């Protein structure tokens, strides 16, 4: 099975490199350091939310409420800042609130046994609605520059954005957990066969609950980063981001049915999606058309691995038949 994953990973990684090369040659300004900075900033919310999302989808569940948790924490951040709370208190508080929102998802799913798709569609609407209750249609913009500037700034005078450091650090942590710890092993086991995982002493419900808490906390953190990046706390921040995240995760080779996938594949999926959108935007393609790309990639990402598996299966069967005939 690992081989199969490796091969899908390499297809996606190869495709990503190809898109990057073609885009730098064909698209004006794509390969500039300025554009690189922008791309990393665009990539940041998708990649960070995709990390816990990968875990959740591998266990066979889903979390569609991530973008709404982001919007909720962004709103709260603005509201608390307007009420004179110190930014040093607001930021950790927002992450905790994200975690609480995730815990509610997790409780409804593991405690009450409700389907995650239905629960998180519900909380997608619920948390976004709460965000509007908190801040309405207004925006809060006067966040301190040393925070907003750090998020949009680069290391020294170079073109490496500051936010790349937490991105890489978190990707490494999530990658190691998934691929080299007992927790990672348990996630695959739960997704492939939850009953057998239970019989092997894995705490299925508790593990899933924690995944939703982490997903909520990361979404809260991204809400903070998003607000600082645009210097704007708004209730509609990040609307529709869950679509891009799920598309990237599936494009990266994670099976929507659970039990299969790898983090390097997901990272490549995120880069591929972002680079494509960035290149198209530089070519003056409209935002609505970009949604078409995201949607098409989502469908392709589910379709392609199936085609690959089918073709490979047929090929193996033919080989078996041949060897049996000999």
């Amino acid at each position, binding site marked *: 099975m*690992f081989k199969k994953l490796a091969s899908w990973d390499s297809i996606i990684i190869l495709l990503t490199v190809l898109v990057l090369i073609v885009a730098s040659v064909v698209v004006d300004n794509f390969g500039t350091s300025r554009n690189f900075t922008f791309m990393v900033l665009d990539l940041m919310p998708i990649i960070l939310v995709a990390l816990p999302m990968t875990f959740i989808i591998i266990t066979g569940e889903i979390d569609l409420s991530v973008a709404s948790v982001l919007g909720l924490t962004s709103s709260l951040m603005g509201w608390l800042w307007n009420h004179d709370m110190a930014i040093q208190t607001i930021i950790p508080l927002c992450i905790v609130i994200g975690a609480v929102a995730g815990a509610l998802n997790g409780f409804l799913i593991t405690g009450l046994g409700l389907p995650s798709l239905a629960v998180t569609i519900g909380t997608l609407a619920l948390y976004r609605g709460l965000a509007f209750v908190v801040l309405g249609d207004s925006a809060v913009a006067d966040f301190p520059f040393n925070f907003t500037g750090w998020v949009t700034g680069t290391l020294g005078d170079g073109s490496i954005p500051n936010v790349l450091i937490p991105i890489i650090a978190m990707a490494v942590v999530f990658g190691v957990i998934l691929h080299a710890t*007992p927790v*990672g092993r348990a996630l695959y086991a739960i997704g492939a066969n939850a009953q057998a995982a239970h019989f092997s002493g894995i705490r299925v419900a508790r593990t899933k609950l924690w995944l939703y808490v982490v997903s909520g906390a990361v979404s809260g953190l991204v809400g903070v980063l998003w607000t600082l990046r645009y210097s704007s706390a708004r209730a509609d921040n990040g609307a529709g981001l869950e679509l891009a995240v799920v598309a990237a995760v599936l494009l990266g080779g994670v099976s929507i049915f659970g039990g299969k996938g790898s983090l390097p594949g997901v990272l490549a999926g995120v880069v591929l999606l972002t680079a494509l959108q960035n290149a198209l935007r530089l070519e003056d393609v409209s935002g609505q058309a970009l949604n078409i790309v995201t949607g098409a990639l989502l469908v392709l990402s589910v379709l392609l691995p199936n085609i690959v598996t089918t073709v490979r299966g047929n090929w193996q069967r033919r080989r078996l038949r041949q060897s049996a005939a000999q």
Partner: protein
Amino acid sequence: MAEAIALLEVHDVTKSFGAVAAVQGVSFPLYSGEAHALVGENGAGKSTIVKMLAGVHRPDTGTLRVNGADVDFAGPADAKAAGIAVIYQEPTLFPDLSVAENIAMGNQPLTRLRQIDRKAMHANADRLFARLGVHIDPTRPARGLSIADQQLVEIAKALNLPAAENPRNNQMTSEARVLIMDEPTAALSGVEVERLFAVVRSLRDEGAAILFISHRFEEITELCERVTIMRDGKHVATELVADLTVDDMIRRMVGRDLSALFPKQDVTPGEVMLSVENLSREGIFRDISFEVRAGEIVALAGLVGAGRSEVMQAVFGVDPYDSGAVKIRGKRLKPGNPRAAMAAGMALVPEDRRQQGLIMDLSIERNITLPRARKLARLGLLFGGAEKRAAATWAEKLQTKLGKLSDAVGTLSGGNQQKVVLAKWLATAPQLLIVDEPTRGIDVGTKAEVHRLMSSLAADGLAVVMVSSELPEVLGMADRIVVLREGRVAATLTRAEATEESVMYAAMGQEVAA
């Protein structure tokens, strides 16, 4: 009776699943106007016969005949069209539809406007119930009916074949009417059984043929004229019930050569490892108590559905229990917590390899190390091939035939999959091993290996609990046998007391013959 037309005939039928021959060359006729019992141990092939008659399976060789003509059922619909209806132990009604709707399912009467004719549907249900002599409101939903009433609805449904639309056509000879009942009385009380039998008798007197499968001998002697006995997929005898005693039937069901099996080595039992005290779970099992000592193999015997697996799953903690206690070395174990059970030295090789024992899509290596991943990790990390080494060691010890450890476990044969499950749990170095149907569906050679392994593990001081439906295995391996019947301990037999007959008597609720 001999000159009557054979409504249905099973003729020299064979059916294999993989390498296992479930039914081998079985023949028996079923006549109009008779109730015919089909008996045999678990795994004797009764269910396979039923499934072939129901059109679920197709015979590999041999034929089924209806009214003397060969038939070939492509699916259950064909069997139904031929007039064969099957009532299973668990009724399969749609709970939210009305009784009448359930009866008419797939065969609804229509008005001229092609709407469902509810009036006709209810009248039809009333007519069927009148014929069966029972009173069930056709307009009520099926949900909430007792199991007995649900079965009566199933029977009404079975009788509601397309030809029944003309109520005047009562000539049973014109259409085959075979009613197959697979352990219909298992969940019924005495009064309900009587009512069901009254219905069955009236159908029989109208010319239907009944194939009745039951483990309760008193029911067979009461209801049936003839009995077909099966053993290990083969036909043993078809005789008049009146000519046989219950002892005769049991002897023919179990009679088998025991010498081919591996008797367990004698071991002096050590300290008490496991004590189960008055364990109960509402509706599943009650007041289960037994002890297992180091070096002992204790078998849990009984019929399918007696609650054996459920008890052991509650002991291991994958299922909850309501009251009682599970103690390991005298220390009470936290209920409903497999992790605590594992920490206390317990391991469970479950009954269902595909759903409970293994994760088919994961590699052999990952499967073997799954319960132990946390122990194999260094500083929380699994690097440097620790899993591979551990998996290789155990795969080797059990002589598992495999390509690469990284292959999906689903690619292995059943016997080798079973070895992987054993490897997975033996690698945790348990002091108490629970094995549930350890040799089900595996070939004879591997079976012997598994028996030898269990014997040597017990000799090394392991306490073993074995759930098994195979009597020779139970008798060959166990030091003591706890027989469960309907969720309760029916008997505890020592090795000296245990014979195939005494275990079967206890499992079926018969007095041991003096």
